[in-house]
């Protein structure tokens, strides 16, 4: 009985963790490449969730089919905000850049929820396609169609991102910029354009995570900061700069949270923060990061 419960919770943890991984990879990418901490990252997730909600309720588009549309919308959205608010700030030196972009992102994380309240009210919104309640049993554990789809989507997106970063010229230019932006400029990489695309890509990844969230849980205007913090915990857990690492760390956090919830109930959130602090104290480069 107990084993069945733990096994079931373990599976649930993996599917939740896949969303953590997806949101964290976007944050890790923008932080690693541009040295910008986008605290409005969770807001992009929220907006992605609402766009999927609109596509479903207004145009009858299945959220899984709507994924590319949401990704494109958030990519453009991220590009516009980057161009207007951040592009002027990244030219500054490290410390000034960090402080100013942090302030701008905090501002956005206050404005976006308010706009969302006007557009969608403060009520919880979720999507329940016809297959949403369905599940199938494997070895005594029930697997829901929606969480499974979410996991598959997350894995496919992460793999695609990994291939993009390691196999294409654009991906290599992103990694080069992340390692040494001055040297990247000297080999002829347009660093400003790399920044723009990277930031937009991060927003698109958050938007994709938002679609998974609106299918499995619900979206509310104020949810962004909680997801930013989740992403931050995962990024710290994984270490900066590793796409695969951030994804695995996300799954790890999801599983730890779910399984510990059996024993600790509502204190699991504190557990996440506890892990955050322990990692910062004893392994600041993260589990998969290099010292």
């Amino acid at each position, binding site marked *: 009985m107990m084993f069945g419960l733990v096994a079931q919770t373990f599976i649930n943890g993996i599917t939740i963790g896949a969303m953590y991984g997806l949101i964290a990879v976007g944050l890790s990418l923008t932080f690693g490449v541009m040295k910008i901490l986008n605290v409005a990252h969770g807001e992009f997730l929220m907006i992605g969730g609402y766009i999927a909600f609109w596509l479903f309720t207004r145009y009858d588009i299945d959220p899984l089919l709507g994924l590319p549309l949401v990704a494109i919308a958030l990519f453009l959205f991220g590009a516009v905000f980057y161009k207007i608010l951040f592009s002027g700030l990244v030219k500054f030196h490290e410390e000034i850049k960090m402080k100013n972009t942090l302030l701008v992102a905090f501002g956005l994380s206050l404005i976006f929820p308010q706009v969302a309240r006007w557009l969608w009210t403060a009520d919880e919104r979720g999507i329940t396609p016809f297959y949403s309640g369905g599940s199938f049993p494997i070895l005594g554990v029930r697997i829901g169609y929606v969480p499974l789809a979410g996991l598959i989507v997350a894995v496919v997106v992460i793999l695609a991102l990994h291939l993009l970063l390691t196999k294409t*010229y654009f991906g290599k230019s992103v*990694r*080069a910029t992340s*390692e040494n932006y001055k040297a990247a400029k000297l080999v002829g*990489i347009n660093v400003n354009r790399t920044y723009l695309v990277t930031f937009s890509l991060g927003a698109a990844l958050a938007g994709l995570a938002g679609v998974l969230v609106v299918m499995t849980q619900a979206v509310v205007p104020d949810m962004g900061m909680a997801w930013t913090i989740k992403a931050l915990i995962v990024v710290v857990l994984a270490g900066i700069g590793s796409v695969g690492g951030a994804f695995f760390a996300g799954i790890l956090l999801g599983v730890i949270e779910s399984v510990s919830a059996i024993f600790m109930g509502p204190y699991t959130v504190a557990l996440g923060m506890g892990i955050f602090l322990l990692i910062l104290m004893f392994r600041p480069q993260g589990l998969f990061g290099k010292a």
Partner: protein
Amino acid sequence: MLEVNNIDVYHGNLQALWDVSLEVGEGERVSLIGANGAGKTTIVETVSGLLTPASGSMVFNGVRLDKEPSQRVVRLGVCLVPEERGIFFGMSVLENLELGAFHKKSRKVKDETLESVYGLFPLLKDRSRQVAGTLSGGEQQMLAIGRGLMSKPKLLMLDEPSLGLAPIIVKNIFEVIKQINRSGVSILLVEQNVRIALGLAQRAYIIENGRIIQHGDAKDLLSDEQVKDAYLGTG
């Protein structure tokens, strides 16, 4: 080929260069020498588009460089191999070289250029799959130069290629630089090691406190009493 006319350059509010003018001719080897902090690096970084001059002009083969971003400067055929090499440590040797051929024109002929770079530095071919961060200092310098060549430059600027390397390796690297020059690439070399710099170059400029204080044929400078006193330590 490259003409720098009366540029003033600032780092923030601090002026780093005053009224600097210099010239590199087609196929020429020119050196910038001077003490640490004199402004040599600032000059090549300004030419490569990392810094923008506050006044003055820079012209390369008839094209104004002073307002161009670095990626345009590379495309026009001016490449800087930076101080401390600027290797992408986490990437393989081959990936580093491939990134050298980033702009479209050089990307098209990437494979041929790669072969000629391997011809100059056979060691890089053996190490092509290795992560660049695990190379020795000399190998990293070879990689940095090789990566610079991948962009098919007409003018190659090298900032302190001898830094931190054993004399025998420095000798090898300077042999290769001469070979590169013989294939038709102009060289602008920044060096603290005045003896090897003047050994390689045909002409040289001496920088002090952000100003060019002297220039002339390398041979003349080598026998100049003042230069001997100040830089060659034979006084």
